């Protein structure tokens, strides 16, 4: 079972499916959507990146000391995820000081649970994709929770100041808004979880089915993946909102000046 052809044969298949790219370009030109160029660029860029990681994984899977290289991969993933998420919080100074530890903690903790429970055997073909999913999802959740928290504080400065002026600490006055932002960052994932199997078969399960895994095992694994995403996500969101407080308030329990300029 699995994909019934080699990677060389796959290139021919890939070339044939580029008919779909042609359709996108034709419709884009015909309807003046102006997305054909962008889609082609995204396809070439994304496809190129995938081929590079595929080559890297091919080497990694054959290496005797793969675990050395995997640490380098982890560091790159963490730094890239922290930097990407920090770009969302454009006004917050040194936002990476919040995003990087938040993503690192959430993703690492969920991966440790997976490793201990044997859901993730300590072999590169399991570690790399699962770590990618864990870091990627933690990054998305971190971005949403951070963006939402900044927006909430910016829109509710007067209510926060009311609480502060009655003797609340910054932690106490931020608490309701931290709750909103944690909830907002997790709602899409939880909604996604509710529709599993009804509207679509999600990525991990689809991949396992294509690779010939028993559908029941594939379903179990998909649930494990979701638990990893939500478990790691809530820790990431919690740490994001906790660490953000120092960036949103001064040590004198005052709202930072940059928030008044938004």
């Amino acid at each position: 079972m699995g994909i019934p052809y080699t990677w060389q044969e796959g290139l021919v298949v890939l070339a044939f499916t580029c008919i779909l790219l042609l359709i996108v370009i034709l419709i884009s030109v015909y309807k003046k959507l102006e997305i054909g160029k962008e889609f082609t660029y995204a396809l070439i860029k994304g496809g190129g990146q995938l081929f590079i990681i595929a080559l890297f994984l091919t080497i990694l899977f054959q290496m005797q000391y793969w675990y050395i290289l995997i640490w380098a991969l982890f560091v790159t993933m963490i730094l890239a995820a922290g930097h990407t998420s920090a770009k969302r919080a454009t006004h917050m100074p040194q936002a990476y000081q919040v995003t990087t530890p938040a993503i690192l903690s959430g993703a690492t903790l969920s991966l440790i649970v997976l490793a201990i429970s044997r859901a993730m055997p300590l072999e590169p073909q399991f570690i790399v994709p699962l770590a990618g999913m864990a870091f990627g999802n933690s990054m998305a959740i971190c971005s949403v929770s951070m963006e939402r928290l900044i927006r909430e504080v910016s829109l509710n400065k007067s209510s926060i100041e009311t609480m502060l002026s009655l003797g609340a600490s910054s932690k106490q006055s931020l608490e309701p808004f931290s709750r909103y932002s944690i909830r907002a960052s997790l709602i899409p994932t939880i909604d996604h979880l509710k529709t599993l199997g009804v509207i679509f078969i999600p990525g991990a399960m689809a991949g396992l089915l294509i690779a010939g895994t028993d559908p029941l095992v594939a379903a179990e694994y998909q649930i494990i993946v979701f638990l990893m995403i939500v478990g790691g996500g809530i820790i990431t969101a919690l740490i994001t909102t906790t660490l953000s407080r120092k960036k949103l308030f001064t040590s004198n329990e005052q709202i930072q000046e940059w928030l008044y300029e938004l």
Partner: protein
Amino acid sequence: MDILHINNIKKTLQKTTILTDLSLTVKKAEILTLVGPSGSGKTTLLRCINRLIDPDQGTIHYHENDIKNIPVVSLRKEIVLVPQETYMLPGTVYDNIAYGQNLQGYKDEAVIKQSLTDAGLDRSFLTKDAMKLSGGEKKRVSLARALAINPKILLLDEPTNGIDPKVLVTVEKNIIDFARKRNLTILWVTHNIDQATRVSDRIANLKEGTITEVQRAQEFQWGSAY
């Protein structure tokens, strides 16, 4: 006895100078109104005293202590700001008035009820949804909320703004009564000249970020004000 000394404070916000060399002394248990045109720095001054912001230069002393040396949360329990924009916390009027006490980890029902009465509302309000009150009622709840933590100085930013003119004088009387009864010092920002004359012991005129005149209410020269 002086309770507050403000010495040569300056404050610039978003590249605009708001306060320039502002000095003012406030006596214990007096009601001092701050009058002046919009943008003259009245609200900014109150925010500096409550330490929602810090002045760029100059000092503010509370009972001879530089307020920068007082833990900020403790300071805000003694010098409470009632902002112009009234914000009600989710919950009942009771929840709102008890908020400051909850933060300090105690609940004094008698003080909560007395604060509501002092602010001019009867006890039937305690169970009402705070969000559904009228603008004037919300103003009074925010006054009661501040009173419930037994402040020493109350900073009132346009406290009667939005209150029905029919009850305006009653609300003013309530504030004066509870100030006298509790030996409270009040800094009261207002645009209303008649109100300043009615409620003040002294009036301070603020113009372009500095105090131009401080006089007893009866002696204040309105001709040179603003």
